[in-house]
């Protein structure tokens, strides 16, 4: 009420103030107490009047006060407002102190607009530079993993340069891109392309090599802050490009630096080791049915304790330097017991050297920030490598009091050597974990004649040492990201800016498959050149005006955006000169092709923000977009948003309350959208080829001296519409005890309709799919963030915690389409299924009692199957989903004098992953689970319970039953008590998904509790004359991991940064990292 009266009286007196005529001119400069830099944009108001001014870029102001006894109010976001009586002076310089209240913290929102956090009607979260810098991850995305709520990040592997998959608030698109928009200093950049390389010569293998996500090109050290914009209202101004949320990155500048040059140097060295791996048995040798078989695929041979070497029978035996393996009673046995090997010795300690140097300075007129950095990383797999060199120059100059020009320019070179992974015959883990314990891969991988030494005598899979030493994918990316920004401050209420930027890179990729590699025995070389260019132009007009206690700001804008890449690809198959990796090196089998992907958009937009009495904040935005990828009569779409923030602690009775020190309720609604991918409005013809899923290369054209085209698999669609996302969010930000304790709670619900996807068709219609508006998805969730300063003073203890629960449902797909494939195999598959969570796992199950769902245990002696075992039902049914029920993270930071200890605990609950690696290892007889295999039979062929060790006997849970002639399950309802053994027949049949078993029992929970990061830092007391700051620190990542998942670190994905997550099939293991670093400022 008091405020309301005040507003009324203000309005009343305002009229008088205008009538008073000429007064006294006061000028001065406003600077920041933090660093002495001038503060532009500070509001200067004569108390009790509407007379006001704003400081220019030099922090200068000039104001006419009605009388010498007036009081001037200087206010600026993030600073404590000062009231200074004029007292007859003509010149008043002011130093503003930063506000202790975190609420006054300025956050960067869409289009680089800065706002106080308290004024927002939607949730944002910011990660600061120090957290990013200390994490020391090559890809900056990994540094913010588990630091926010609502953001899910999955690194595909622990190898250098591996891709990273990121979503904000779940998936918004079914088959399209779900990665957020990255904006760096106002310039949207390319961050995706982190899918695995599936070579054109081997399109049916899965995994291959994990290419880098292009976010890896950024130098994390350059980042001043990263703000995560989550909801539709936060990103509405980005229009169609930010349907998946946005990451707003601000790089460092010299503007806040003092005139004296500041030099920062940061160096660190890190060590990577493999974290957990699937355990292997070392008790049973290569072979079949308990017999040693040289070169055999599997390890179901004899107990190694019964074996010795034989160097007599075949003196030229080349597969083992110790000789052939024979039983100890063999006449030629030489008495030397057979050795077993730890195949994981293959992995090495990876090392990372990271050096970063920056220089910055600023004056009233100009400022600059210049940095260089170099990262050199060798991985846990021999010869894997990632390196990056960065340089950046950010500079700004105030040309006049009302005009400023800034430029940000960054160059990077990223280079990686990736090693084959996943489900292909050259995959490192594939060859490694299938190797029998008695075969030493390390002995030799290449014979003098150039052929390969593998445990399958040259067939089967590559020796992992062969893969690591002979085959590689080399990526080299040169990139430039830069923009120029003009800022105009015409008057205290009208400013404008123009931001023109470019992000362009060239990626060169060479994929080498040596002669005698299993993937392509004749050898092949592949060369890809990709050029990507993205251009962005933003024009913004800002109007700001205060009407008493009502502050209004209006932004009008225009955007032009163009993005596209072109890839030229060539390969040579059948290398005439082994070791010469050049496209010319094939006599008759070279191919080449090109791929383009380009589109443009244009937009106009408006943003209106109203703030009433520092209590009610109302925002509204509208944006209209045009895109070239849409059909001609449907180019445009309009996206509105509204948001409201209500600071209820500004209400009279709640003001100045130390217990409940701050409280805000907020709500927002937005409609955003997404456009079609290019080239989908018409059917086309493509170069013909034939491939059937069984061979690596297939046939293509030219062939028999002619070329050919065939009609595309996708039916063109001229009726495409925009995807629409309606997002709704409510939240509360409440702080207690002078803001020592704060809790932010948000509930959101996003509804995506008309989702564009390649809808699979029954191929009998002549086409495999049609791109159309079909899907509907909904994601809703709760995010809670809390922070507390538990102890203050000399010994400080701060806690930050985040909790996320997201439910991402596929409501419907196209008519007649119940599910679409995201990734996987024949069994299992990750799919989007109508009525289920996004990322359902489908696959084979056991036959079950039709009424109770209990597993049927075979009791029909007349069929070919063994009694006492469950039976696979080769039908795809829902088996679970890949998504966590919730995730949480907790950071504790303790500091005492110069010592700081912080640790980040990351918890994930729920979600399944396909442990295909373990399943295949069971089939192969190499997994530790297969060690209890010995069984003795009576002459009648039943298990001899006296001889067979008790630990080898198993009784399956279930009821007796069988499958009748029509394929229907028949249950007896009687509980199974038949003991059986998990022997070779079992694991090669229904006991392994690699045999004929269902994937159901290869699915494992991925719950985890991990020590994501621990940092111990010590600031050395320094001689101020030389150093301003010196710090040494130790950081460990993933040092502890508790998970029921029995394979590698479950933070992984087979195919890299794609929507179909949850697949582990010979993926590269994750890593633990130990880093020591030193930071110096002088």
């Amino acid at each position: 009420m008091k405020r309301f009266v005040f507003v009324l009286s203000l309005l009343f007196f305002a009229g008088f103030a205008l009538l008073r005529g000429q007064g006294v001119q006061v000028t001065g400069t406003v600077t920041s107490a933090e660093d002495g830099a001038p503060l532009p944009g500070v509001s200067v108001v004569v108390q009790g009047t509407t007379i006001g001014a704003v400081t220019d870029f030099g922090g200068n102001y000039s104001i006419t006060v009605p009388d010498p006894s007036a009081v001037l109010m200087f206010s600026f976001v993030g600073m404590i407002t000062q009231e200074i009586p004029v007292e007859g002076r003509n010149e008043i310089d002011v130093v503003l102190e930063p506000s202790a209240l975190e609420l006054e913290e300025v956050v960067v929102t869409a289009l680089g607009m800065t706002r106080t956090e308290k004024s927002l009607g939607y949730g944002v979260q910011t990660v600061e530079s120090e957290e990013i810098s200390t994490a020391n991850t090559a890809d900056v995305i990994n540094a913010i993993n588990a630091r926010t709520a609502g953001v899910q990040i999955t690194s595909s592997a622990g190898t250098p340069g591996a891709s990273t998959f990121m979503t904000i608030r779940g998936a918004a698109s079914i088959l399209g891109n779900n990665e957020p928009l990255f904006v760096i200093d106002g310039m949207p950049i390319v961050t995706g392309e982190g899918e695995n390389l599936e070579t054109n010569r081997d399109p049916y293998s899965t995994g291959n090599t994990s290419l880098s996500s292009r976010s890896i090109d950024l130098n994390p050290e350059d980042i001043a802050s990263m703000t995560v914009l989550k909801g539709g209202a936060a990103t509405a101004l980005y229009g169609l490009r930010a349907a998946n949320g946005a990451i707003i990155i601000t790089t460092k500048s010299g503007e806040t630096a003092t005139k004296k040059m500041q030099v920062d140097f940061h160096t660190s060295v890190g060590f990577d080791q493999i974290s957990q791996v699937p355990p292997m048995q070392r008790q049973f040798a290569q072979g079949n049915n308990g017999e040693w078989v040289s070169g055999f695929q599997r390890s179901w041979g004899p107990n190694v304790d019964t074996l010795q070497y034989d160097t007599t029978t075949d003196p030229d035996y080349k597969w083992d330097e110790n000789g052939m393996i024979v039983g100890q009673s063999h006449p030629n046995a030489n008495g030397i017991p057979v050795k077993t090997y730890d195949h994981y010795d293959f992995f090495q300690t990876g090392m990372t050297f990271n050096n970063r140097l920056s220089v910055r300075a600023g004056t009233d007129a100009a400022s600059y920030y210049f940095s260089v950095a170099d990262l050199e990383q060798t991985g846990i797999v021999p010869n894997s490598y990632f390196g990056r060199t960065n340089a950046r120059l950010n500079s700004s100059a105030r040309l006049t009091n009302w005009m400023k020009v800034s430029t940000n320019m960054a160059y990077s070179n990223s280079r990686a050597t990736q090693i084959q992974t996943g489900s292909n015959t050259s995959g490192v883990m594939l060859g490694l974990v299938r190797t029998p314990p008695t075969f030493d891969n390390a002995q030799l991988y290449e014979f003098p004649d150039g052929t390969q030494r593998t445990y399958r005598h040259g067939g089967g899979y590559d020796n992992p040492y062969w893969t690591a030493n002979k085959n590689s994918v080399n990526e080299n990316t040169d990139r430039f990201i830069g923009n120029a920004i003009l800022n105009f401050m015409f008057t205290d209420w009208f400013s404008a800016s123009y931001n023109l930027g470019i992000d362009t890179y060239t990626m060169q990729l060479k994929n080498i498959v040596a002669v005698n590699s299993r993937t392509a025995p004749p050898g092949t070389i592949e060369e890809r050149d990709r050029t990507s260019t993205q251009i962005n132009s933003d024009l913004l007009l800002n109007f700001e005006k205060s009407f008493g206690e009502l502050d209004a700001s209006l932004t009008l804008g225009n955007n032009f955006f163009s993005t596209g890449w072109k890839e030229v690809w060539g390969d040579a198959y059948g290398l005439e000169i082994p070791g010469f990796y050049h496209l010319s090196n094939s006599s008759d089998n070279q191919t080449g092709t090109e791929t383009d992907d380009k589109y443009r958009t244009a937009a106009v937009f408006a943003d209106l923000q109203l703030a009433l009495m520092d209590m009610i904040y109302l925002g509204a935005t509208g944006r209209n977009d045009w895109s070239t990828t849409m059909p001609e009569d449907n180019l445009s779409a309009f996206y509105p948003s509204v948001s409201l923030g209500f600071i209820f602690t500004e209400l009279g009775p709640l003001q100045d309350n130390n217990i409940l020190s701050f409280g805000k309720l907020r709500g927002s609604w937005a409609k955003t959208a997404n456009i079609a991918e290019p080239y989908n409005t018409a059917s086309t013809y493509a170069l013909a080829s034939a491939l059937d899923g069984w061979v690596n290369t297939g046939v293509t054209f030219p062939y028999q001296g002619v070329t050919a085209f065939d009609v595309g698999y996708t039916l063109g669609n001229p009726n495409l519409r925009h995807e629409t996302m309606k997002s709704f969010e409510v939240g509360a930000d409440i702080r207690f005890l002078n803001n020592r304790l704060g809790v932010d709670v948000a509930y959101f619900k996003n509804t995506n309709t008309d989702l564009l996807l390649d809808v699979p068709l029954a191929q009998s219609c002549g086409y495999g799919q049609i791109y159309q508006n079909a899907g509907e998805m909904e994601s809703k969730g709760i995010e809670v963030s809390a922070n507390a300063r538990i102890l203050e003073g000399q010994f400080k203890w701060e806690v930050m915690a985040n909790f996320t629960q997201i439910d991402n449902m596929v409501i419907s797909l196209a008519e007649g389409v119940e599910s679409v494939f995201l990734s996987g195999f024949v069994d299992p598959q990750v799919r989007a299924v109508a009525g289920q969570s996004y990322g359902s796992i489908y696959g084979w199950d056991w036959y079950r009692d039709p009424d109770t769902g209990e597993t049927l245990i075979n009791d029909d002696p007349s069929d070919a199957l063994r009694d006492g075992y469950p039976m696979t039902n080769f039908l795809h049914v829902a088996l679970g989903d890949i998504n966590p029920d919730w995730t949480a993270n907790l950071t504790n930071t303790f500091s005492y004098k110069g010592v700081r200890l912080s640790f980040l605990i990351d918890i994930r609950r729920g979600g399944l992953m396909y442990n295909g690696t373990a399943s295949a290892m069971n089939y192969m007889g190499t997994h530790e689970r297969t060690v209890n295999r010995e069984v003795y039979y009576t002459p009648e062929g039943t298990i001899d319970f006296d001889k067979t060790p008790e630990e080898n006997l198993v009784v399956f849970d279930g009821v007796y039953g069988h499958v009748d002639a029509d394929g229907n399950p028949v249950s007896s309802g009687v509980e199974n008590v038949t003991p059986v053994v998990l022997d070779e027949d079992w694991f090669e049949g229904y006991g392994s998904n690699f045999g004929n078993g269902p994937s159901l029992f290869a699915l494992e929970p991925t719950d985890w509790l991990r020590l994501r990061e621990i940092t111990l830092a010590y600031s050395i007391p320094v001689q101020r004359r030389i150093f301003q700051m010196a710090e040494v620190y130790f950081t460990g990542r993933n040092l502890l991991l508790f998970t029921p998942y029995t394979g590698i670190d479950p933070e992984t994905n087979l195919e890299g940064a794609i929507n179909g997550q949850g697949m582990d099939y010979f993926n590269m293991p994750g890593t633990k990292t130990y880093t020591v670093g030193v930071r110096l400022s002088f």
Partner: protein
Amino acid sequence: MKKLSFITHRVLKAGLISALAAFISSCGWIDTELNVNPDEPGDVPMSLLVPGIQQNMGFILMGNNSVRTTNMWMQLYDGVSRQSHSEARYQLTPADVNNYWQSLYTEELMNAKILTDKAVEEGSPHNEGLGKILTAYSLAVATDLFGDIPYSDALKGAEGVMQAKYDTQEQIYNTIFSLLDDAIAKLGAAEEPVGIEGDVIYGGDAAAWINAARAIKARAELQLSKQNGTTAYNNALALVDAFSSSADDMEVPFETANPNPVFQFMQDRTDIRICQTWLDELESTNDPRIPFYVALDENGEYTGSEAGAENEAASYLGDYMAGNTAPVVLMSYAELKFIEAEAALMTGDADRAATAYKAGVAASVAKVTGAANQEWLDANIETETGGTITLEKIIMQKRHALVGQVQPFSDWRRTGIPTLSLVIGATTTEVPRRFPYSQEEIIYNPDNVPSYGTITNRVWWDQ
């Protein structure tokens, strides 16, 4: 006023800079021509459709999946590892035939339909005839494996028919006959302006295509022997003169840069070997084709893998089926001779049967080995007379001649020859008699896919 003009000055100056930049960048910015796919044409001539269809027929329809699976079931080959071992043990799931079904409809049949439609539109009866033959051939192979399949309602996705109804196998066979009759008429029509181009099978020779159409028809007539009896044999007999020598054989060629599908399979997967059952049959007469059908094992011997025994040390497939540039045979003179032999025998003309049988074996031996092998023929084949010839002898020799094709599986279903025992570790109680429908067809065309029970059930002509 002074202040205002000051502002105006600033606004003008800044506005000019910005407007200029915006103008430069906006000229034709939203240009819908940008959405024309630069990598894929919107239309292509008939001559560029023909070789694509034919290559697919060679590589997929008659190249790999259908051939490997059915030859394992017929115990000509054995699958010794991985998925091939599963298939050899009669495990073939709907998902396993996805790729085959996809190629059948979206490649062979769809592009053949476009070719046929274009030919009609552009007034090219020869291309129309070719399109119909390629369609009829693909339909015949497909229906023999799957039974009822969509055709009359199929391939109409662009017209909005996304879920095609299925035709019965009887209807499909009627379609095959009418397509072939029509093709024979069209190919016999007068010289045309366009002509067949891009034909990698017969080099655009219309007369050769007429012969091929008649040969395919002969096989189709015989396939209905269980349903049509004598009529089937008589109809076939009227067509068996379609080819006059192996030089007329309908084959899809392969080359070093685009190698034979089974060659590629053996190079990349290696999971198939020669089956002991078949090797025993060949060795019983010391067949001269053995070195071409069976590769030597590591010990320099011919060994088979007992069906289902996973004997990886057994012999690989020989170069006739798995050579780098071995062609894929779609229809052969030898097959026509065996059709003639069977049809003549079943209609009471045993002498003609014996003569045709001898010609069939001789043609096959000469084609496979490149030599007449008269001595072996004299000792083992030429002794046959109208009095000694049997259906079993005809089908067994036909099986030896048509190895690597799908027809031995059809002949076994028609005649029960040879008698096959179950493979070791069989997952069904009988040898399968059909393929399942593809998983994707079951999911995306659920209302129309017929329920087929299990893969041991019989298609219409097998009943």
